[in-house]
Protein backbone atom coordinates (compact mmCIF):
# COMPACT_ATOMS: atom_id res chain seq x y z
CA UNK A 1 0.00 0.00 0.00
CA UNK A 2 1.12 3.54 -0.74
CA UNK A 3 2.36 5.84 2.00
CA UNK A 4 -0.50 7.64 3.70
CA UNK A 5 -1.14 11.23 2.70
CA UNK A 6 -3.04 11.90 5.92
CA UNK A 7 -1.93 10.25 9.12
CA UNK A 8 -3.50 10.81 12.54
CA UNK A 9 -1.71 9.20 15.46
CA UNK A 10 -3.28 9.01 18.92
CA UNK A 11 -4.99 12.33 18.39
CA UNK A 12 -6.79 13.72 21.40
CA UNK A 13 -8.82 16.88 21.40
CA UNK A 14 -10.59 18.73 24.16
CA UNK A 15 -12.97 21.67 24.21
CA UNK A 16 -12.24 22.84 27.73
CA UNK A 17 -12.78 19.74 29.83
CA UNK A 18 -14.93 18.09 27.16
CA UNK A 19 -12.95 15.23 25.58
CA UNK A 20 -14.10 15.43 21.95
CA UNK A 21 -11.61 13.20 20.09
CA UNK A 22 -10.21 10.17 21.85
CA UNK A 23 -7.07 8.42 20.61
CA UNK A 24 -7.90 8.81 16.96
CA UNK A 25 -5.69 6.71 14.71
CA UNK A 26 -6.33 7.02 11.03
CA UNK A 27 -4.35 6.70 7.84
CA UNK A 28 -5.63 7.82 4.47
CA UNK A 29 -3.75 6.79 1.34
CA UNK A 30 -3.68 8.89 -1.83
CA UNK A 31 -6.84 8.46 -3.86
CA UNK A 32 -8.76 6.96 -0.98
CA UNK A 33 -12.33 8.11 -0.26
CA UNK A 34 -13.25 8.12 3.39
CA UNK A 35 -16.78 8.77 4.59
CA UNK A 36 -17.20 9.68 8.24
CA UNK A 37 -20.55 8.98 9.84
CA UNK A 38 -21.87 9.33 13.36
CA UNK A 39 -24.47 11.00 15.50
CA UNK A 40 -24.68 14.75 15.98
CA UNK A 41 -21.99 15.91 18.39
CA UNK A 42 -19.91 12.75 17.98
CA UNK A 43 -16.89 14.70 16.70
CA UNK A 44 -17.06 14.24 12.91
CA UNK A 45 -16.51 17.89 12.06
CA UNK A 46 -13.83 18.25 14.68
CA UNK A 47 -12.00 15.25 13.24
CA UNK A 48 -11.73 16.60 9.71
CA UNK A 49 -11.11 20.17 10.90
CA UNK A 50 -8.03 18.91 12.71
CA UNK A 51 -6.61 17.73 9.39
CA UNK A 52 -6.22 21.28 8.05
CA UNK A 53 -5.58 22.83 11.42
CA UNK A 54 -8.86 24.70 11.82
CA UNK A 55 -8.99 23.03 15.22
CA UNK A 56 -5.93 22.71 17.41
CA UNK A 57 -5.57 19.44 19.31
CA UNK A 58 -3.95 18.57 22.60
CA UNK A 59 -2.42 15.15 22.14
CA UNK A 60 -0.93 13.04 19.38
CA UNK A 61 0.30 13.98 15.94
CA UNK A 62 -1.09 14.59 12.48
CA UNK A 63 1.00 14.40 9.33
CA UNK A 64 -0.42 15.62 6.04
CA UNK A 65 1.63 15.12 2.90
CA UNK A 66 4.79 14.98 5.01
CA UNK A 67 3.99 18.11 7.05
CA UNK A 68 3.66 17.39 10.76
CA UNK A 69 1.20 19.09 13.09
CA UNK A 70 1.69 18.82 16.81
CA UNK A 71 -0.10 20.20 19.85
CA UNK A 72 0.88 23.70 20.82
CA UNK A 73 1.73 26.75 18.84
CA UNK A 74 5.25 25.93 17.70
CA UNK A 75 6.81 27.66 14.71
CA UNK A 76 7.25 24.26 13.07
CA UNK A 77 3.53 23.66 13.35
CA UNK A 78 2.66 27.07 11.93
CA UNK A 79 4.94 26.43 8.94
CA UNK A 80 3.26 23.05 8.45
CA UNK A 81 -0.14 24.69 8.69
CA UNK A 82 0.67 27.02 5.81
CA UNK A 83 1.89 24.13 3.69
CA UNK A 84 -1.03 21.86 4.58
CA UNK A 85 -3.70 24.42 3.84
CA UNK A 86 -2.28 24.90 0.36
CA UNK A 87 -2.61 21.19 -0.29
CA UNK A 88 -5.92 20.53 1.42
CA UNK A 89 -9.20 21.98 0.20
CA UNK A 90 -12.27 22.26 2.38
CA UNK A 91 -15.97 22.52 1.64
CA UNK A 92 -18.27 23.65 4.43
CA UNK A 93 -21.90 22.94 5.23
CA UNK A 94 -22.72 26.66 4.97
CA UNK A 95 -20.64 27.17 1.77
CA UNK A 96 -18.80 30.16 3.30
CA UNK A 97 -18.45 31.91 -0.03
CA UNK A 98 -17.20 35.49 0.14
CA UNK A 99 -20.40 37.52 -0.36
CA UNK A 100 -18.61 40.72 -1.42
CA UNK A 101 -16.77 39.07 -4.31
CA UNK A 102 -18.19 37.72 -7.52
CA UNK A 103 -18.15 34.00 -8.15
CA UNK A 104 -15.10 34.41 -10.36
CA UNK A 105 -13.25 36.48 -7.76
CA UNK A 106 -14.12 34.01 -5.03
CA UNK A 107 -12.25 31.40 -7.01
CA UNK A 108 -9.34 33.60 -8.15
CA UNK A 109 -8.37 34.97 -4.74
CA UNK A 110 -6.35 32.12 -3.28
CA UNK A 111 -4.44 31.14 -6.44
CA UNK A 112 -3.42 34.77 -6.93
CA UNK A 113 -2.48 35.51 -3.33
CA UNK A 114 -1.10 32.16 -2.27
CA UNK A 115 0.24 30.60 -5.46
CA UNK A 116 1.09 33.98 -7.04
CA UNK A 117 -0.68 33.00 -10.24
CA UNK A 118 -1.22 35.88 -12.68
CA UNK A 119 -4.68 37.37 -13.09
CA UNK A 120 -5.28 36.03 -16.59
CA UNK A 121 -4.25 32.53 -15.76
CA UNK A 122 -6.25 32.60 -12.52
CA UNK A 123 -9.33 33.70 -14.41
CA UNK A 124 -8.85 31.05 -17.06
CA UNK A 125 -8.58 28.37 -14.40
CA UNK A 126 -11.61 29.73 -12.56
CA UNK A 127 -13.75 29.65 -15.70
CA UNK A 128 -12.62 26.15 -16.55
CA UNK A 129 -13.52 24.97 -13.02
CA UNK A 130 -16.91 26.65 -13.19
CA UNK A 131 -17.60 24.84 -16.43
CA UNK A 132 -16.54 21.64 -14.81
CA UNK A 133 -19.02 22.05 -11.95
CA UNK A 134 -21.69 23.00 -14.47
CA UNK A 135 -22.17 26.74 -13.79
CA UNK A 136 -19.86 28.43 -16.26
CA UNK A 137 -22.57 31.01 -17.01
CA UNK A 138 -22.69 32.31 -13.41
CA UNK A 139 -19.13 33.64 -13.22
CA UNK A 140 -19.97 37.30 -12.79
CA UNK A 141 -22.79 36.93 -10.30
CA UNK A 142 -22.51 37.42 -6.58
CA UNK A 143 -22.96 34.34 -4.37
CA UNK A 144 -26.31 35.46 -2.97
CA UNK A 145 -27.72 35.52 -6.50
CA UNK A 146 -27.21 31.75 -6.80
CA UNK A 147 -29.20 28.82 -5.46
CA UNK A 148 -27.75 26.81 -2.58
CA UNK A 149 -26.68 24.01 -4.88
CA UNK A 150 -24.94 26.42 -7.20
CA UNK A 151 -23.23 28.13 -4.27
CA UNK A 152 -21.89 24.85 -3.00
CA UNK A 153 -20.56 24.01 -6.45
CA UNK A 154 -18.79 27.36 -6.51
CA UNK A 155 -17.30 26.49 -3.12
CA UNK A 156 -16.02 23.22 -4.54
CA UNK A 157 -14.56 25.02 -7.56
CA UNK A 158 -12.93 27.55 -5.25
CA UNK A 159 -11.22 24.79 -3.29
CA UNK A 160 -10.17 22.98 -6.46
CA UNK A 161 -8.54 26.15 -7.82
CA UNK A 162 -5.70 25.57 -5.38
CA UNK A 163 -5.12 22.19 -7.00
CA UNK A 164 -5.42 20.36 -3.68
CA UNK A 165 -4.16 16.86 -3.01
CA UNK A 166 -6.87 16.19 -0.45
CA UNK A 167 -10.44 17.49 -0.20
CA UNK A 168 -12.35 17.70 3.07
CA UNK A 169 -16.15 17.94 2.99
CA UNK A 170 -18.12 18.75 6.14
CA UNK A 171 -21.75 17.85 5.46
CA UNK A 172 -21.69 19.57 2.06
CA UNK A 173 -25.36 18.85 1.33
CA UNK A 174 -26.92 19.29 4.76
CA UNK A 175 -27.89 22.93 4.20
CA UNK A 176 -29.41 22.28 0.79
CA UNK A 177 -32.99 21.88 -0.32
CA UNK A 178 -33.55 18.24 -1.24
CA UNK A 179 -33.80 18.92 -4.97
CA UNK A 180 -30.30 20.41 -4.99
CA UNK A 181 -28.49 17.67 -3.15
CA UNK A 182 -28.08 15.59 -6.29
CA UNK A 183 -26.21 18.20 -8.30
CA UNK A 184 -23.61 18.62 -5.55
CA UNK A 185 -23.20 14.89 -5.03
CA UNK A 186 -22.73 14.50 -8.78
CA UNK A 187 -19.79 16.90 -8.71
CA UNK A 188 -18.32 15.01 -5.77
CA UNK A 189 -18.78 11.69 -7.57
CA UNK A 190 -16.87 13.03 -10.56
CA UNK A 191 -14.12 14.25 -8.33
CA UNK A 192 -13.92 10.85 -6.72
CA UNK A 193 -13.79 9.17 -10.12
CA UNK A 194 -10.87 11.37 -11.09
CA UNK A 195 -8.92 10.00 -8.16
CA UNK A 196 -9.11 12.81 -5.60
CA UNK A 197 -8.34 11.88 -2.02
CA UNK A 198 -11.48 12.74 -0.09
CA UNK A 199 -12.61 12.81 3.52
CA UNK A 200 -16.34 13.38 3.63
CA UNK A 201 -18.65 13.85 6.58
CA UNK A 202 -22.16 13.17 5.37
CA UNK A 203 -25.52 11.71 6.19
CA UNK A 204 -26.00 10.66 2.56
CA UNK A 205 -25.69 6.93 3.05
CA UNK A 206 -26.35 6.21 -0.62
CA UNK A 207 -23.40 8.34 -1.60
CA UNK A 208 -21.26 6.68 1.06
CA UNK A 209 -22.14 3.22 -0.16
CA UNK A 210 -21.42 4.13 -3.74
CA UNK A 211 -18.26 6.23 -3.45
CA UNK A 212 -16.50 5.39 -0.20
CA UNK A 213 -13.55 3.04 -0.04
CA UNK A 214 -13.91 3.08 3.69
CA UNK A 215 -16.65 4.18 6.07
CA UNK A 216 -15.69 5.31 9.55
CA UNK A 217 -18.24 5.35 12.32
CA UNK A 218 -17.51 7.72 15.19
CA UNK A 219 -19.24 7.59 18.54
CA UNK A 220 -18.44 10.09 21.29
CA UNK A 221 -15.08 10.95 19.81
CA UNK A 222 -13.93 7.41 19.17
CA UNK A 223 -13.65 5.42 15.98
CA UNK A 224 -15.92 2.53 16.84
CA UNK A 225 -15.98 0.78 13.52
CA UNK A 226 -14.50 1.14 10.06
CA UNK A 227 -14.38 -0.81 6.84
CA UNK A 228 -15.68 -0.96 3.28
CA UNK A 229 -19.25 0.36 3.05
CA UNK A 230 -20.70 -3.03 2.29
CA UNK A 231 -19.30 -4.42 5.52
CA UNK A 232 -20.12 -1.49 7.76
CA UNK A 233 -23.63 -1.01 6.42
CA UNK A 234 -24.66 -4.60 5.87
CA UNK A 235 -22.77 -6.37 8.57
CA UNK A 236 -21.87 -3.96 11.38
CA UNK A 237 -19.93 -5.57 14.20
CA UNK A 238 -20.54 -3.09 16.98
CA UNK A 239 -23.89 -2.71 18.73
CA UNK A 240 -23.47 1.04 18.61
CA UNK A 241 -23.01 1.02 14.86
CA UNK A 242 -26.09 -1.16 14.47
CA UNK A 243 -28.14 1.16 16.61
CA UNK A 244 -26.94 4.23 14.72
CA UNK A 245 -27.53 2.69 11.31
CA UNK A 246 -30.97 1.45 12.18
CA UNK A 247 -31.83 5.02 13.18
CA UNK A 248 -30.50 6.73 10.05
CA UNK A 249 -31.40 4.09 7.48
CA UNK A 250 -35.02 4.10 8.55
CA UNK A 251 -35.58 7.35 6.68
Amino acid at each position, binding site marked *: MADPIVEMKDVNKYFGSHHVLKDINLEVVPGEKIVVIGASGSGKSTLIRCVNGLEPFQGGRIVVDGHPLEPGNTSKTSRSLQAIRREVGMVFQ*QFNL*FPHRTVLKNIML*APMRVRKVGRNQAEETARRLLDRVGIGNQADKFPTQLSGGQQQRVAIARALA*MDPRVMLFDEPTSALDPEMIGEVLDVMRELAAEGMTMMVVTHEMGFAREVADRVIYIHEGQIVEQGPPAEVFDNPQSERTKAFLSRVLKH
Partner: protein
Amino acid sequence: MGNFQFDWQAMISSIPHLLEGIPYTLLISGVGLVFGFVLGIVFGLLSINPIRLLRWPAIAYIEVFRGTPVLVQVLFIFYGLPEVLGGPIDALTAGIAAIALNSGAYISEIVRGGVQSIDKGQREAGLSLGLSRLDTFRYVIWPQALRRMIPPLGNQAIVSIKDTSLFAVIGVGELVRQGQIYIATTFNALEVYLMVAILYLVITLTLSAILRGLERSGLVGQ
Protein backbone atom coordinates in the same frame (compact mmCIF):
# COMPACT_ATOMS: atom_id res chain seq x y z
CA MET B 1 -44.86 87.21 28.12
CA GLY B 2 -43.67 90.44 26.66
CA ASN B 3 -44.87 91.70 23.34
CA PHE B 4 -42.27 89.77 21.42
CA GLN B 5 -41.86 90.36 17.68
CA PHE B 6 -39.97 87.83 15.62
CA ASP B 7 -37.38 89.77 13.65
CA TRP B 8 -37.03 88.08 10.26
CA GLN B 9 -34.68 90.74 9.11
CA ALA B 10 -32.25 90.04 11.95
CA MET B 11 -32.34 86.38 11.16
CA ILE B 12 -31.58 86.92 7.47
CA SER B 13 -28.86 89.42 8.07
CA SER B 14 -27.08 87.09 10.50
CA ILE B 15 -26.53 84.56 7.72
CA PRO B 16 -23.39 86.00 6.09
CA HIS B 17 -21.84 86.33 9.51
CA LEU B 18 -22.71 82.80 10.55
CA LEU B 19 -21.48 81.35 7.27
CA GLU B 20 -17.98 82.41 8.27
CA GLY B 21 -18.16 79.79 11.02
CA ILE B 22 -19.04 76.91 8.74
CA PRO B 23 -15.53 76.33 7.35
CA TYR B 24 -14.28 75.93 10.93
CA THR B 25 -17.10 73.61 11.84
CA LEU B 26 -16.39 71.47 8.78
CA LEU B 27 -12.62 71.65 9.18
CA ILE B 28 -12.64 70.58 12.83
CA SER B 29 -15.13 67.79 12.31
CA GLY B 30 -13.71 66.68 8.95
CA VAL B 31 -10.04 66.56 9.90
CA GLY B 32 -10.92 65.33 13.39
CA LEU B 33 -12.97 62.45 11.98
CA VAL B 34 -10.23 61.43 9.52
CA PHE B 35 -7.78 61.12 12.40
CA GLY B 36 -10.53 59.56 14.50
CA PHE B 37 -11.02 56.92 11.81
CA VAL B 38 -7.32 56.08 11.85
CA LEU B 39 -7.35 55.89 15.66
CA GLY B 40 -10.52 53.83 15.49
CA ILE B 41 -9.03 51.27 13.12
CA VAL B 42 -5.84 50.96 15.16
CA PHE B 43 -7.44 50.77 18.60
CA GLY B 44 -10.51 48.88 17.42
CA LEU B 45 -8.33 46.12 16.00
CA LEU B 46 -6.04 46.15 19.02
CA SER B 47 -9.06 45.83 21.30
CA ILE B 48 -9.86 42.42 19.76
CA ASN B 49 -6.27 41.27 19.57
CA PRO B 50 -5.70 37.97 21.39
CA ILE B 51 -2.53 39.39 22.96
CA ARG B 52 -3.59 40.92 26.26
CA LEU B 53 -0.68 43.34 26.39
CA LEU B 54 -1.94 44.98 23.19
CA ARG B 55 -5.61 44.72 24.03
CA TRP B 56 -5.43 46.30 27.44
CA PRO B 57 -4.14 49.79 26.44
CA ALA B 58 -6.66 49.93 23.60
CA ILE B 59 -9.56 49.19 25.92
CA ALA B 60 -8.24 51.78 28.38
CA TYR B 61 -8.14 54.41 25.63
CA ILE B 62 -11.67 53.58 24.49
CA GLU B 63 -13.12 53.66 28.00
CA VAL B 64 -11.42 56.93 28.95
CA PHE B 65 -12.43 58.89 25.87
CA ARG B 66 -15.91 57.43 25.68
CA GLY B 67 -16.52 57.87 29.37
CA THR B 68 -15.59 61.54 29.68
CA PRO B 69 -17.36 64.53 28.06
CA VAL B 70 -15.79 65.90 24.90
CA LEU B 71 -16.07 69.37 26.46
CA VAL B 72 -13.85 68.31 29.34
CA GLN B 73 -11.45 66.74 26.84
CA VAL B 74 -11.07 69.92 24.83
CA LEU B 75 -10.69 72.07 27.95
CA PHE B 76 -8.03 69.69 29.18
CA ILE B 77 -6.18 69.88 25.87
CA PHE B 78 -6.52 73.64 25.43
CA TYR B 79 -5.96 74.84 29.00
CA GLY B 80 -4.33 71.84 30.66
CA LEU B 81 -1.82 70.44 28.21
CA PRO B 82 0.06 73.75 27.62
CA GLU B 83 1.15 73.61 31.25
CA VAL B 84 2.91 70.34 30.48
CA LEU B 85 4.12 71.27 27.02
CA GLY B 86 5.35 74.68 28.07
CA GLY B 87 3.66 76.44 25.16
CA PRO B 88 0.14 77.28 24.06
CA ILE B 89 -1.95 75.07 21.78
CA ASP B 90 -4.12 76.97 19.34
CA ALA B 91 -7.84 76.52 19.68
CA LEU B 92 -8.31 74.98 16.24
CA THR B 93 -5.71 72.29 16.91
CA ALA B 94 -7.21 71.59 20.31
CA GLY B 95 -10.65 71.21 18.73
CA ILE B 96 -9.42 68.86 16.05
CA ALA B 97 -7.51 66.81 18.60
CA ALA B 98 -10.55 66.53 20.84
CA ILE B 99 -12.79 65.36 17.99
CA ALA B 100 -10.11 62.92 16.82
CA LEU B 101 -9.59 61.38 20.24
CA ASN B 102 -13.26 61.33 21.13
CA SER B 103 -14.61 60.00 17.84
CA GLY B 104 -11.63 57.61 17.71
CA ALA B 105 -12.91 55.91 20.85
CA TYR B 106 -16.40 55.47 19.44
CA ILE B 107 -15.08 54.43 16.04
CA SER B 108 -12.90 51.81 17.76
CA GLU B 109 -16.08 50.26 19.02
CA ILE B 110 -17.65 50.47 15.56
CA VAL B 111 -14.60 48.75 14.06
CA ARG B 112 -14.65 46.06 16.73
CA GLY B 113 -18.34 45.45 16.24
CA GLY B 114 -17.99 45.41 12.46
CA VAL B 115 -15.16 42.90 12.45
CA GLN B 116 -16.76 40.69 15.08
CA SER B 117 -20.04 40.66 13.19
CA ILE B 118 -18.49 38.76 10.29
CA ASP B 119 -19.36 35.08 10.45
CA LYS B 120 -16.42 32.98 11.61
CA GLY B 121 -16.94 30.71 8.63
CA GLN B 122 -15.52 33.50 6.47
CA ARG B 123 -12.23 33.41 8.31
CA GLU B 124 -12.18 29.63 8.20
CA ALA B 125 -12.82 29.65 4.46
CA GLY B 126 -9.96 32.08 3.92
CA LEU B 127 -7.52 30.13 6.08
CA SER B 128 -8.55 26.79 4.60
CA LEU B 129 -7.70 28.13 1.14
CA GLY B 130 -4.17 28.75 2.34
CA LEU B 131 -4.47 32.52 2.71
CA SER B 132 -2.33 34.00 5.45
CA ARG B 133 -4.08 35.50 8.44
CA LEU B 134 -3.25 38.96 7.14
CA ASP B 135 -4.62 38.25 3.65
CA THR B 136 -7.70 36.64 5.16
CA PHE B 137 -8.30 39.83 7.08
CA ARG B 138 -7.48 42.13 4.20
CA TYR B 139 -9.42 40.43 1.41
CA VAL B 140 -12.17 38.58 3.27
CA ILE B 141 -13.02 40.10 6.65
CA TRP B 142 -12.25 43.81 6.32
CA PRO B 143 -14.16 44.60 3.10
CA GLN B 144 -17.29 43.04 4.56
CA ALA B 145 -16.82 44.68 7.96
CA LEU B 146 -16.30 48.08 6.34
CA ARG B 147 -19.63 47.91 4.55
CA ARG B 148 -21.41 47.18 7.79
CA MET B 149 -19.53 50.00 9.50
CA ILE B 150 -20.68 52.75 7.12
CA PRO B 151 -24.08 53.45 8.74
CA PRO B 152 -22.70 53.72 12.30
CA LEU B 153 -19.75 55.74 10.98
CA GLY B 154 -22.18 58.18 9.39
CA ASN B 155 -23.96 58.40 12.69
CA GLN B 156 -20.69 59.17 14.45
CA ALA B 157 -19.89 61.87 11.88
CA ILE B 158 -23.16 63.60 12.67
CA VAL B 159 -22.51 63.40 16.40
CA SER B 160 -19.00 64.81 15.98
CA ILE B 161 -20.19 67.67 13.77
CA LYS B 162 -22.61 68.69 16.51
CA ASP B 163 -19.93 68.24 19.18
CA THR B 164 -17.81 70.96 17.55
CA SER B 165 -20.43 73.46 18.77
CA LEU B 166 -19.00 73.01 22.26
CA PHE B 167 -15.69 74.45 21.13
CA ALA B 168 -17.15 77.94 21.15
CA VAL B 169 -15.94 77.96 24.76
CA ILE B 170 -12.30 77.93 23.73
CA GLY B 171 -12.93 80.62 21.15
CA VAL B 172 -12.74 78.68 17.89
CA GLY B 173 -14.68 80.74 15.36
CA GLU B 174 -17.07 77.94 14.47
CA LEU B 175 -20.79 78.29 13.93
CA VAL B 176 -21.94 78.77 17.52
CA ARG B 177 -19.09 81.12 18.31
CA GLN B 178 -19.97 83.28 15.30
CA GLY B 179 -23.54 83.36 16.55
CA GLN B 180 -22.47 84.46 20.02
CA ILE B 181 -20.34 87.24 18.59
CA TYR B 182 -23.19 88.47 16.43
CA ILE B 183 -25.72 88.35 19.25
CA ALA B 184 -23.38 90.38 21.45
CA THR B 185 -23.94 93.34 19.13
CA THR B 186 -27.56 92.81 17.96
CA PHE B 187 -29.21 91.04 20.96
CA ASN B 188 -31.37 88.90 18.65
CA ALA B 189 -30.65 85.65 20.49
CA LEU B 190 -33.78 83.81 19.35
CA GLU B 191 -33.44 84.59 15.66
CA VAL B 192 -29.70 83.99 15.50
CA TYR B 193 -29.70 80.71 17.44
CA LEU B 194 -32.59 79.53 15.31
CA MET B 195 -30.49 80.29 12.25
CA VAL B 196 -27.51 78.49 13.82
CA ALA B 197 -29.70 75.45 14.40
CA ILE B 198 -30.94 75.56 10.81
CA LEU B 199 -27.39 75.66 9.48
CA TYR B 200 -26.43 72.59 11.56
CA LEU B 201 -29.48 70.84 10.16
CA VAL B 202 -28.45 71.70 6.61
CA ILE B 203 -25.05 70.10 7.21
CA THR B 204 -26.34 66.99 8.97
CA LEU B 205 -29.27 66.44 6.63
CA THR B 206 -26.92 66.66 3.65
CA LEU B 207 -24.71 64.03 5.23
CA SER B 208 -27.72 61.83 6.01
CA ALA B 209 -28.88 62.09 2.42
CA ILE B 210 -25.46 61.04 1.12
CA LEU B 211 -25.43 58.08 3.49
CA ARG B 212 -28.92 56.99 2.51
CA GLY B 213 -27.85 57.21 -1.12
CA LEU B 214 -24.87 54.99 -0.36
CA GLU B 215 -27.05 52.46 1.41
CA ARG B 216 -29.55 52.39 -1.43
CA SER B 217 -26.77 51.87 -3.95
CA GLY B 218 -26.18 48.53 -2.22
CA LEU B 219 -22.51 49.31 -1.71
CA VAL B 220 -22.87 49.39 2.03
CA GLY B 221 -24.90 47.79 4.76
CA GLN B 222 -26.38 44.30 5.04
